[in-house]
């Protein structure tokens, strides 16, 4: 059954105010043994990937996710709403149009929000 499951980890909360985003990324890492989870940042979740944000608690998760060739996508709509651009973000994430983000969520069979 596992090959049929598309797991999406949805990061929607900002880093540092809660431990949710950190735990979400830790979950992506944990699920990567059995699935190919996609990490998708929407709403305030996009703030987790600013260049200047303190990533002490989760940089190792980002590195691990990239080392095993999994993707982290960021919703351009959320960036626009916050006056942010691709250049404000770290290189390890990929900015996608809102429609593409929707498609990823639509195609998931299990979506887990953090």
């Amino acid at each position, binding site marked *: 059954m596992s090959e049929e499951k598309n797991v999406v980890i949805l990061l*929607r909360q900002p880093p540092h105010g809660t431990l949710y985003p950190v735990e979400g990324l830790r979950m992506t890492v944990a699920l990567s043994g059995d699935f190919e989870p996609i990490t998708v940042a929407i*709403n305030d979740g996009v703030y987790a990937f600013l260049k200047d944000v303190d990533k002490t608690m989760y940089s190792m998760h980002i590195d691990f996710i990239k080392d095993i060739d999994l993707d982290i996508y960021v919703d351009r709509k959320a960036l626009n709403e916050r006056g942010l651009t691709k250049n404000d973000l770290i290189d390890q994430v990929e900015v996608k149009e809102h429609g593409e983000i*929707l498609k990823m*969520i*639509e195609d998931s*069979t*299990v*979506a*887990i*929000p953090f």
Partner: protein
Amino acid sequence: MSKKVLYFITSEDITGVELAMEHTEEDDVTILLLQNAVYFANKSNKAVSQALNQNKKVAACEEHIEIRGLSNFISDKIKLVATDDVIDLIFENDSIINM
């Protein structure tokens, strides 16, 4: 390949409703409101009213509506479901978008 998708919304975050409304028309989408998300069922909520006008299926956990005293304030178009029915909905759908 049309499938049945359940937006399982348990948080006070309207994003789940918005995502459901943007979901492709090809799929058969149900929005299920639980916990404080049932407040979105209030007639005065724009996102849910719009979803109902677009003939999206919207359901709400009856017990969660009742303890909050909201029965008189929600649209007739919202289907109230018992906890038992929630379980059935979960398994009837092919995928679950949790929010």
